[in-house]
Each structure stands twice: as C-alpha cells, then as structure tokens.
C-alpha cells in the first residue's frame, strides 16, 4: 500500500519535473510545478509530517505558484526562443546534471542498509509537537522570520513600483 502510494506520487513528481524541463512555454512549466508540489505534499503525509503537508499545499502550491502564474500572465511571457547561450548550456548542463544524479544515487543506495525503512503511521509529528518546539525552543528565530517577511513585503513593493 505504502509502496504503491510512494510510486504513484513519486512518479507524478518526476513526471511533473520532467514536464517543467521540457515545456517551452512558462505557463506550462508553472502548472507542472504545481503538480510536483502537490504530490510532494502527499509524500510528506506518508512520512508523517501532517503540518508540513498542509503548509506545502497552502504556501507552495497555493501562494507561491499563484504568484508565479500571476507574474507570467502579467508580463505576457511567450515561448522561449533558442539562442546561442542555450547550446553551451545543453553541452554543459546535461552531462553535469547526469554526473550529479549518478553521484547522489550511488551514495544514497550504498547507505541503503544503514538507513532502514518508512512504515505508514509508525512515526507522526502532529502540529502540537511541532508548535511546542517552535514556540518554546525556537521562539526567537520564529519571531525573526516575521521581520524577514515584513522586509520582503516592503522590498517587493518598492521594487515592483513604477519609477517616477
């Protein structure tokens, strides 16, 4: 059951990410990224992270991707054209990425025995567990992030404003 769910949603993730890579129009890439983020939320649930699954749907596939699609539509972004720079990127990008993937997969699979497995419902971090740590031990970093968000809002408004 768990393995089936993992392969369905993991496959959806990889398919969405590949679609992001292959599509030429940014709006199609944005929509496939929403698929990736939503199926990642299901994987978080399988890993027993219920708050993060909800936050992933709300923050990532909700807020951030809506912002992206909004900007794509606002700027009326069309299909990207092939330029001289993309040839060099193809030459360096694909072998480099393949080498990185091979290295990471080799490392992870060689530690397969030591890492153990994930069973459904064996370990669940509830929202109250998470908030207990967040509001007791990490209260200061949590408060600092609110200042970060405030600065980001002000910066976004200042940058996107039309210059006089």
């Amino acid at each position, binding site marked *: 059951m768990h393995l089936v769910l993992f392969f369905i949603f993991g496959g959806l993730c990889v398919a969405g990410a590949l679609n992001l*890579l292959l599509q030429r129009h940014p709006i199609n890439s944005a929509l496939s990224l929403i698929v990736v983020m939503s199926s*990642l939320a299901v994987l978080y649930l399988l890993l027993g992270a219920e708050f993060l699954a909800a936050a992933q749907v709300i923050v990532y596939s909700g807020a951030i991707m809506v912002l992206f699609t909004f900007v794509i539509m606002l700027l009326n972004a069309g299909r990207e054209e092939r330029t001289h720079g993309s040839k060099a990127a193809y030459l360096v990008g694909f072998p480099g990425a393949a080498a990185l993937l091979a290295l990471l997969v080799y490392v992870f699979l060689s530690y397969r025995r030591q890492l153990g497995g994930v069973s459904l419902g064996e370990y669940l971090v509830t929202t109250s567990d998470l908030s207990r740590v967040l509001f007791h031990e990490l209260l200061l970093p949590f408060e600092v992030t609110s200042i*970060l968000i405030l600065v980001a809002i002000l910066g976004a408004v200042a940058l996107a404003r039309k210059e006089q």
Partner: protein
Amino acid sequence: MVPTSYYLVLSAILFTIGVAAFLIKRNIITVFMSIELMLNAVNLSFVAFAHQWHQVSGQIFVFFVMVVAAAEAAVGLAIIIAIFRTRNTLNVDEIDLMKL
C-alpha cells in the same frame, strides 16, 4: 515498507532535474521556478531524514525553508517585473550587464 533511501533518491532526481532546468532554460521566470524545484527536493530529503531519526528539527528546518522561499519568491518576482519594465525581455541571454 519503503526504504528511506528511495525517498532520498527521489529527492536527488528532483534536485538534478532542477539543476538541469536551471542551466538549460532561457526564460528568467522558468529559471526562478527551477530554483523552487530544487528547494522542494531538499525539503523532501529533510523530511525523510526527520522521519528516519525521529527528530522534529528536520521538519522545523523545512518550515523555515518555506518561509524563506516565500520571501524570496516575492522579492524575486518583483525584481523580474522591474527587469521586464526596463528591458522589455525575459531572456537571460539579453540580461548580461554584470557579465564579464
């Protein structure tokens, strides 16, 4: 039961696709989206390790990464809008003022 390494391999695959998209894509918005994809891949490995060692701090890290990603997306998209206003293009090859 799913081995934890499967989750890590999935996160490696997503991260690599993100790196490839970052290098290959020429549209600045798509380049930015591939950064988000890489952040998501790393988040998945954080959650997998948090489950592996039964530590809440891994999930706390993911929470902070989400906060920073939201702030980064807002500021980055504002910068993209400003670039489009001044240069009328979204192609990264034409935005090369800081290139040697």
